């Protein structure tokens, strides 16, 4: 049985609200989603929260979803929306969040021995949300342009232009920091 067949079976299980399907989905895609959320939010608690909310939304929304192309892309799309929501909420508490991000960046800097990783990790939160989403999905998850477009609900042309803008901006930030 191929991975695609497994995904279809899993998705049908979610549609029928089978607890086993949810358990399997959490076990299969939980690690991928938590890492994506971590890259996006740079906050362990918020990332964990976003992933849990993603599975709850998948549980609720599977029945309404038609024409699923990839379960991973679908879940990543939901996760992206949840992360955006977290960031919006955080913007209301901008000062506190800013302080938190600085602390977080300081903490994470000490985690990496490679200075290039430190540089990228501090540059990533400075990218605008839509650009960050594209970077994570395209370069970390290695989704195709088509899959990224489906996950984010945007046209393929927009994915390409955002990818280009994100790379340019990221290089600018990293060169400025260098």
């Amino acid at each position: 049985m191929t991975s695609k067949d497994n995904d279809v079976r899993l998705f049908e299980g979610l549609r029928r609200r089978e607890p086993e399907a949810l358990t399997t989905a959490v076990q299969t895609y939980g690690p991928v989603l938590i890492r994506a959320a971590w890259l996006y939010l740079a906050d362990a608690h918020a990332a964990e929260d976003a992933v849990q909310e993603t599975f709850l939304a998948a549980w609720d929304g599977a029945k309404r979803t038609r024409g699923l192309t990839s379960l991973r892309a679908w879940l990543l799309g939901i996760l992206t929306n949840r992360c955006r929501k977290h960031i919006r909420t955080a913007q209301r508490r901008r000062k506190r969040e800013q302080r938190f991000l600085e602390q977080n960046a300081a903490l994470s800097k000490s985690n990496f021995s490679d200075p290039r990783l430190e540089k990228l990790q501090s540059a990533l939160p400075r990218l605008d949300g839509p650009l960050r989403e594209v970077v994570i999905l395209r370069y970390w998850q290695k989704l195709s342009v088509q899959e990224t477009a489906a996950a984010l609900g945007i046209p393929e042309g927009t994915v390409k232009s955002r990818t280009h803008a994100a790379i340019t901006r990221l290089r600018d930030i990293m060169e400025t920091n260098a």
Partner: protein
Amino acid sequence: MNVDQNQFEQYLSDSLDAISQSAPAAPRAEQIFRRLRRRKIRRVGGVVTVLVLLACGLSTLVFHRISQPVPTETIVVQAPIRIEAARNARAQPARPWRIPAMKLTALSSPSLKVQDGLTADIPVSSITAGTQGASPNIPTRFVTPRVSLPKL
């Protein structure tokens, strides 16, 4: 950082992978199920609260209406007065009535504040004839006659 686009993209891909390794542990399925249960309880609690509040509000409203009698007001109008039964009234007959004088016991309504000489729809609970004329043969309940008030 003088690297070409492809090298940078490769570096980005590798670095993101390395950074993502430091992510916290993925949530367990039990945590999701616990959240589902909590959410269900919250929803049921919310519905019950809304229903209880609605019931309280409605009962208060009904009790208030029952305990307060409907205010009435008596208007005495002088002759001549012209009354046309409302279209939906079961008035027999439907032609206009001319009555020398009559007393209207009307339900309290903003439309009672009409000026002299104007026509107004007045919800009437009972109509009794005045001293100078015969009792008009119109229904005495749930009729909304159109009354032309003469200038006093």
